[in-house]
């Protein structure tokens, strides 16, 4: 047993040396890690690709996981930049936010569903289980499959905030993570209802995915209405950092906010923000 302890000590010692070597190696490389909101991620991947063309020595990795992950990773130093698809909360003022675009949250159904518009009361009733059949809101005779987002997603927070619901009151049938998963779930189930980023939904619908954005209170869920501010559920898309950005991080954020990217942002059905 004494021998055992001796070998354990030697091992721990080696482990510490090895660990510090690994840490020093990882600090040396020229890499930007961007994590967070799945709403921003597709746009960010494209921006990162263009940035890499201009700066071949830099490598940018984009990963999704929700706005909370973006904040969390940046605070813990795992990511250099976080993507957050909402405004920062008061208890998050230790972080620096840079808006790159505006987006809305739209209700989506399958393209074969005849329902065109819902009001907030109906949506709240569907999500709390008071309305369970499409017939009650002028649709086909079928049970509604309620698709809700997992906690920690800012789309969920804003949606519940708008309907003034608590997540514990929602009676979902399927819980999804990324926007794309929500779109895929609704695509595969003709009687499902879900809510995702308008940008993501419009982008997919234009590529032929069978989904439709519903009008909310009679206001069409479109980029124009988000732009003019009459769509009730809209939000800024932010990049966040833990310190005042320097060097390559700063260059990247400035690049992401520069006017030359407006066409790209519009192609993803988001609304560019004029910095001036």
């Amino acid at each position, binding site marked *: 047993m004494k021998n055992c302890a001796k070998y354990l000590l030697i091992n721990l010692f080696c482990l510490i040396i090895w660990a510090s070597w690994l*840490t020093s190696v*990882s600090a040396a490389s020229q890499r930007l*890690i961007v994590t967070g909101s799945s709403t921003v991620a597709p746009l960010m991947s494209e921006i990162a690709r263009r940035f890499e063309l201009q700066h071949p020595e830099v490598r940018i*990795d984009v990963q999704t996981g929700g706005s909370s992950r973006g904040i969390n990773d940046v605070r813990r130093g*795992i990511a250099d930049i976080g993507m957050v698809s909402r405004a920062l909360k008061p208890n998050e003022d230790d972080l620096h936010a840079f808006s790159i675009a505006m987006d809305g949250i739209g209700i989506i159904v399958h393209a074969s569903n005849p329902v065109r518009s819902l009001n907030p009361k109906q949506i709240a009733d569907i999500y709390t289980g008071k309305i369970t059949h499409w017939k009650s809101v002028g649709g086909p005779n079928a049970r509604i499959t309620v698709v809700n987002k997992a906690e920690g997603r800012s789309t969920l927070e804003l949606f519940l905030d708008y309907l003034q619901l608590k997540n514990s009151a929602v009676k979902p049938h399927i819980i999804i993570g990324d926007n*794309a998963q929500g779109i895929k779930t609704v695509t595969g189930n003709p009687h499902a209802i879900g809510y995702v980023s308008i940008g993501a939904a419009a982008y997919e619908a234009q590529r032929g995915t069978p989904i439709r954005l519903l009008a909310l209170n009679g206001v069409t869920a479109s980029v124009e209405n988000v732009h003019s501010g009459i769509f009730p559920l809209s939000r800024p898309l932010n990049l966040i950092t833990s310190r005042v950005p320097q060097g390559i991080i700063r260059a990247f954020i400035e690049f992401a906010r520069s006017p030359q990217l407006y066409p790209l942002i519009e192609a993803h059905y988001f609304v560019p923000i004029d910095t001036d």
Partner: protein
Amino acid sequence: MRDNQQLHTVHRIRDRLAQCLIYSAVFLVGAVFIWILADLARGGIMHLSWEFITESPRDAGRAGGIASILISTLLILCVALIAAVPLAWSTAILLVECMPAASSFGKTVRFSLHVLAGVPSIVFGLFGNAFFSIYLGLGFSILSGGLTLACMLLPILTSTAEAGLRAVPDTYRLSASALGMTRTATLIHLILPAAAPALAAGLLLGIGRALAETAALLFTSGYVERMPGSLLDSGRALALHIFDLSMNVPGGDMPAYASALVLVTLLLCINILAMKLAYGLQRWRIMT
């Protein structure tokens, strides 16, 4: 006499019934599994082509292929094996060659391997995330994914190597010892070559296990689908690619089928190879 005959009939009926049930169960199992395999093959072959293997994924995996994913998978696998194989095999050698079976050290090692073998892969993922990614600061990288997998592979590599070494006849050790060979020389010149097929078969089983793993890699190697530039880049393993395509990419089912077909074919080849080696070993043992 009639009682006896009645009993006999009852037994016959019971026998028939059992046979019917067993045959129908087997038929059901076979049919379902052939359904799955046929589904995978049918869905995958349509999308599968040479370009699919040699191109990198574009448009979140809807277009392009899986080249960068295969490279990432290979790198994760290499890291895992480089880390796990020396540990596992030297543990096995120590347990078989240098330790009496009842020693406290041997018991401790064996017990911890037994426990490790039962740990669910998601728990390895939790550990890998907390230790490699955050505590050691490796972030989401091929290195932390590979090291997490290495922890997972330790039990299977050790137990297969141990079984292989134990299968080497004791006469080898006794004759070598009678010839005055050192233990080191015996090990290198006699025992390891004799156990080589078993070690290789165990290695292949470990590779198969590593290729199939998803949950442990979700929070350690991340899921960036690009060609990795170094071991510290995040890389997406093939199994994780299937997961992402099927869950998060509308219109991603076809490439997911094709990737699943590639993965299953790879695993099939590896398993057949491992079985061949194990079979060859059996024959070899009969001959000596």
